[in-house]
């Protein structure tokens, strides 16, 4: 009698276990983020319902990533790909997509999400010529440096997650709403803090911070890379040095993952301070999107 009861209990538990293991409703969604900023955004919107993998770190140049075996293995199991797009990953992502044998993340599928599709892009070239360097036909892909872009992408991403994880829409909507509210609030504060940068002259290394410059209203006087992706030559640096001697320049903006020797040289020659901003979220180190941008703002404020 008692044995029977225990048996029944065991069967019940086993059945429940089976249901939870095999039920598609409770399966966590695997997200493959090309860059850490999108991993952090997915985390903000999806929370624990997502298993998030970031293909790159904040110390890596997203143009130059190897199509490594580990990335193919991760792409193989992804339900959703969240990338910048606008050709930023053109040197490695197409290969991952072709090798992974994963139908749901191919272009045109709901599992293929390109953040740059949802914002207005800057630096769209009128003419395409490689003599202009590694230009992107679709415009500047470093869209996460503009905090307003984050809102547009967050909106599109929560909709996409709801589309993929059917039945879980409420979860994404409520988390997105909370994120949006908080981000708007922070953005207003940040904007106030960097107000002093309005119309200030700066020099940048690569056109990495285009959207940030636009948001703060800073005026980019010169770019150290003569054309995108090409290292600054000494003659080009000398030319910039000459220009800087005639105008008042607030700072030289630099990206964390790029060799800073040319930047340091120019700074020593001109006395203009270098500001090395973290390129993106240190997702692997547990940083959130707002923590990263707060750090960027704090560093900008430090030059006041």
């Amino acid at each position: 009698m008692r044995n029977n009861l225990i048996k029944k209990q065991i069967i019940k538990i086993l059945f429940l276990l089976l249901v939870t293991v095999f039920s598609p409703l409770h399966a966590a969604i695997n997200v493959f983020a090309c860059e850490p900023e999108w991993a952090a955004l997915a985390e903000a919107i999806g929370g624990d319902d997502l298993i998030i993998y970031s293909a790159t770190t904040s110390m890596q140049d997203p143009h130059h990533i190897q199509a490594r075996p580990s990335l193919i293995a991760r792409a193989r199991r992804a339900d959703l790909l969240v990338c910048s797009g606008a050709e930023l990953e053109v040197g490695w992502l197409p290969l991952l997509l072709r090798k992974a044998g994963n139908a749901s993340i191919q272009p045109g599928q709901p599992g293929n999400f390109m953040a740059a599709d949802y914002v207005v892009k800057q630096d769209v070239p009128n003419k395409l010529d490689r003599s202009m360097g590694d230009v992107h036909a679709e415009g500047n892909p470093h869209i996460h440096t503009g905090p307003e872009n984050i809102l547009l992408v967050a909106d599109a991403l929560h909709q996409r997650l709801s589309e993929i994880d059917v039945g879980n829409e409420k979860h994404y909507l409520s988390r997105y709403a909370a994120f949006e509210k908080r981000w708007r609030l922070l953005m207003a504060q940040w904007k106030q803090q960097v107000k002093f940068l309005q119309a200030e002259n700066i020099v940048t290394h690569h056109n990495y911070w285009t959207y940030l410059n636009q948001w703060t209203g800073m005026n980019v006087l010169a770019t150290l890379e003569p054309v995108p992706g090409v290292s600054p030559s000494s003659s080009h640096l000398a030319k910039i040095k000459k220009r800087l001697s005639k105008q008042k320049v607030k700072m030289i903006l630099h990206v964390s993952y790029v060799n800073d020797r040319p930047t340091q040289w120019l700074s020593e020659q001109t006395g203009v301070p270098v500001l090395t901003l973290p390129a993106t979220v240190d997702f692997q180190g547990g940083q959130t999107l707002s923590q990263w941008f707060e750090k960027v703002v704090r560093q900008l404020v430090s030059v006041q």
Partner: protein
Amino acid sequence: MNTLILRNTIICALLSHSAVALSETDETINKKLQALEQRLQAMEDKKAAESSIRRSTKQVNNTGFNPAISMILDGAYASYNNNPEDYALPGYALGGEAELAPEGFSLGHSEITLSNNIDDKFYGQFTIAIAEHDNEIEVELEEAFFETLSLGSGLTIRGGRFFSAIGYLNQQHEHAWNFYDAPLIYRGLFGNRYIDDGVRVSFVAPTDLFLELGAEAFSGRKFPAGGEHSNVGSWTAFANLGGDVGVSHSWQAGLSYWKADDIEREYGTHAHGGAVIEVPVFVGDSDIVGLNAVYKWAPNGNYREQNVKLQFEYFKRDDDGAVTLLDSIPLETSTLNGEQDGWYLQAVWQFAREWRAGLRYDALDSDSQGSDPDVLDEVGLLANGYEPERSSVMAEWVPSEFSRIRLQYNHDKSYQSSDDQIFLQYTFSIGAHGAHQY
């Protein structure tokens, strides 16, 4: 338009509302008006954002559907101590494209690649290489294949003409190689590379550790196979493992197997005093076992500034059959029981953004026996104890992802008389930005 209607409705509603509730103070009405105005503003903002999204979508025109086109310009200046026409690899009768580049200026493979997703289910790629051999322009169809995109479950099928997965380097286009010339073992066994027409099925396991299993079936008409086959002439099976160690290190290791039975392998022609040309042909069964390992390092995994790549491959071929010199009178023939193996190890260091340097060492061995050693010797299959080896060093300047100038020196002991070889090579890529394999 819509906002205009909305605005009118709101005003009408407000008017009727205020008419009914006359007792309400002006202040509360003002507050309500303000709240409504705010909502309106929010809606207008959202509309503006939406329309800006629409603006960002690209204009579609006819050329938008053109495939990605890329072109490789490749050429070199070569200098040898020995006569390149005398080149031989004792123990390995050469075939395919195994000869040395001519002395002085010459063009390498000029390639044109077209590729694109065909639709949501297939990808297609087409490569022609144009090269000159003995003053004749030859157009080679290097690749023409389709590949599935939508099978899922880690499965991919490729069909058409493509580079076999038999070795690591074999799947890379020549312009992606780290040295000017092919490793000796590739030259000896495959005539530089193995391409054939057929089909490949590959499967990537759903694990964090990269595990790929695959098999290929080919026509068997191409060197080192050959002859006509009514069904599958040669086939391969391969397995690759790979992963990361921390954020700075990554690796891949592979095992492959190739088998071709009842083949007629034609080696390079063989002249006797200029007049009679005898063609050595191997008839029988052949198989190849391959091992490869690749390791890459970059500080913080950032390959832009600095990185190191180590690469090792080993191959061993077993031949069992007979070799005949066609058109020889009297007909010269011998049984062949051959074993050829060799390896190379190379290291390439990108020490600055635009500069790379590399070292490579090649070593080969062979042991072939048959009923008539004289015939085997004539064909070049007897090494008589000689073991070919070669050491190479190269430096290259890579001003952008699209251009490269390379200087390479080989101390080549492929055959008994050692040779010093110098190559100055340019490789330019025009057009679409290709993605490079690991």
